[in-house]
């Protein structure tokens, strides 16, 4: 248990988690920015936001992903980047979970239109792993007391 805690809090582990989550967010952010219309449609399909706000979410969310990714990859305030990434993953987890619970049969649009993955348990699992990685990127490397 002690060894695991040491591993999870090791600076290299943290940096690796930050880079991994940074790459994922970089790809997903750019894919969405490249095709805003499609992403707006995906946001609509989730039916979580009031319709009028869907475009505002679709136009800003990918850029928040991108800036968080750059923060993580370039190690500029990477812990803050991890916090933003974890918050985004929490939102995505809720979105996919709600869509799943409502039985919506939709594509997730997680990586723009190139990603035809449908919302389901696998997607939920992926999101959970990414959330975990984000949290790992936030952990401070201090002695376990």
């Amino acid at each position, binding site marked *: 248990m002690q060894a695991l805690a040491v591993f999870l809090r090791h600076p290299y582990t943290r940096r690796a988690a930050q880079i991994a989550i940074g790459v994922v967010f970089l790809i997903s952010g750019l894919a969405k920015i490249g095709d805003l219309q499609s992403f707006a449609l995906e946001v609509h399909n989730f039916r979580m936001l009031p319709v009028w*706000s869907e475009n505002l979410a679709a136009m800003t*969310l990918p*850029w*928040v992903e991108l800036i968080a990714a750059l923060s993580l990859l370039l190690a500029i305030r990477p812990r803050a*980047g991890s916090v*933003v990434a974890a*918050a985004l993953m929490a939102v995505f987890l809720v979105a996919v979970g709600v869509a799943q619970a409502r039985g919506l049969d939709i594509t997730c649009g997680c990586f723009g239109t190139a990603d035809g993955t449908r919302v389901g348990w696998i997607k939920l699992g992926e999101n959970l792993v990414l959330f975990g990685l984000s949290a790992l990127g*936030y952990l401070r490397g201090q002695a376990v007391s």
Partner: protein
Amino acid sequence: MARHASWKRNHGMGEQVGAERSSRQGGGTVRSAVLIVAVGVVLGIAYNYLGLLGNPVFGLEWLARPPEEDVYVLEGSDPAEEAASGEDEYIEVDDPMAVFAPAPDLPEIPDLPRPIQIQMSAAKKFFDAEGAVFVDARDEADYVLGHLPEALNLPFDVAATDPALLESIDTGGRPIITYCGGGECETSISLAWFLLEAGHTRVTYFPNGYSGWEEAGYPVVRGGKGEE
């Protein structure tokens, strides 16, 4: 959504930060996180503004309008609805197969260049009279777990990449009824569009999908594709 996310983080992670030994640095992290969100939002809005000026326009309208649902609901496919609606829309039917209407009590499906939504009760009538070809738009794994008897399985994502498969469906002049897992059934509507593009006519779908069908206590079968 972004603002909502930052609110969440402030109140969620803020407690953890408070538990950190060096709370001053933790406060800096929160401030930086807010900054990241703010920069993202500003850039997103700026980029969209440029997108609206661009040629061709690639930005989004600032406030989304409810999309015009491209849905045509078959009139009179539901007995209760039939009684209620006084203004029937008449559509010229240009389909030679329409004269071979298989059974008099089946609703007539017009030949329209778009998927037609029918009520599940209407789908059941077609099912009972074997008056339509049922196509399941879900994954094979879902199909094996349970599907409508005699339904073909044509997963939406497979259909998207294989037009030959779409064309190979032999309807024998009958309309096609697609269905999906349930809910709003985007995948069955998309599949219906693919079927129309592949040259099929009178392609319909019913909302509620397989889960609605099963809940209604209508017949289902389990197992693979072999049994058709």
